């Protein structure tokens, strides 16, 4: 049986991969990794979904059937990691732009 959410996640991963592999602009490459990371986060959360489940928080919980908490915790971790990596890569892109005057990975050598 094909589960549409998982298939959608794979579509998003392919989009991100295509950006990483084929794009020349550094900022677009960074966006590509971010898209892949978000897609994997989505995959994690949807792996942990249980039909009819509520968020695993007991404060005023309507019923006791809950979705799995671990994927959500892992997603929280991986979001912050992705944020840090993106910040790092963008600052490299800033330096590269400053020195070469271009973000295109083919044209970068021209200015020297």
């Amino acid at each position, binding site marked *: 049986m094909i589960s549409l959410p998982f298939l959608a996640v794979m579509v998003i991963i392919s989009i991100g991969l295509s950006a990483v592999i084929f794009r020349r602009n550094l900022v677009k490459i960074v966006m590509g990794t971010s898209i892949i990371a978000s897609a994997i986060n989505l995959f994690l959360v949807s792996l942990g979904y249980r039909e009819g489940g509520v*968020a695993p*928080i*007991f*404060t*005023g*919980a*309507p019923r*006791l059937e809950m979705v799995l908490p671990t994927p959500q915790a892992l997603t*929280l971790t991986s*979001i*912050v990691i992705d944020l840090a990596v993106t*910040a790092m890569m*963008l*600052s490299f892109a*800033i330096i590269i732009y*400053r020195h070469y005057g271009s973000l295109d990975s083919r044209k970068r050598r021209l200015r020297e």
Partner: protein
Amino acid sequence: MKRSSESGMSVIVRTVTCVAAIPVIIFGLYVIMHGHLTPGGGFAGGAIIATMTALFIVAEGGDAADRLGRGMLLTAESAGLVLFALLGFLGLRTTFFYNFLANTGSIFGTQVPFGPNPGYLNTAGVIPLMNLVVGLEVFAALSLVVIFMFSYRKEEQ
């Protein structure tokens, strides 16, 4: 429109930013302190407070990035993380990262029975403390990143 990029936006925007700062920071603190009861926690709350830094810089212009205390933010970041690791070390009587406050009856140590409840603040042991120090660290780290990217842009000219 040179004014808008260098010395900030109009008086209206700047005033609204100052007014908005109070509810945003209070909301961030609420998210941090109720991390063990409601969705949220240190990371989310810290990020909410750090948006205030970005908003402040956007409203006040690139010069404002220099006026924010970088040394203080760096200290806050380090201190937050040192305290976080210290909370882990304090559990070393049993194991690293042991929740030594939970269910002891002291601060944050009320026992919680299984099942839905309206939520009691004085529970969860070290988790609220960790939320607090992580919130401090995330706020400082994100603010630093935003400030550095802003002030670097200014140096180019």
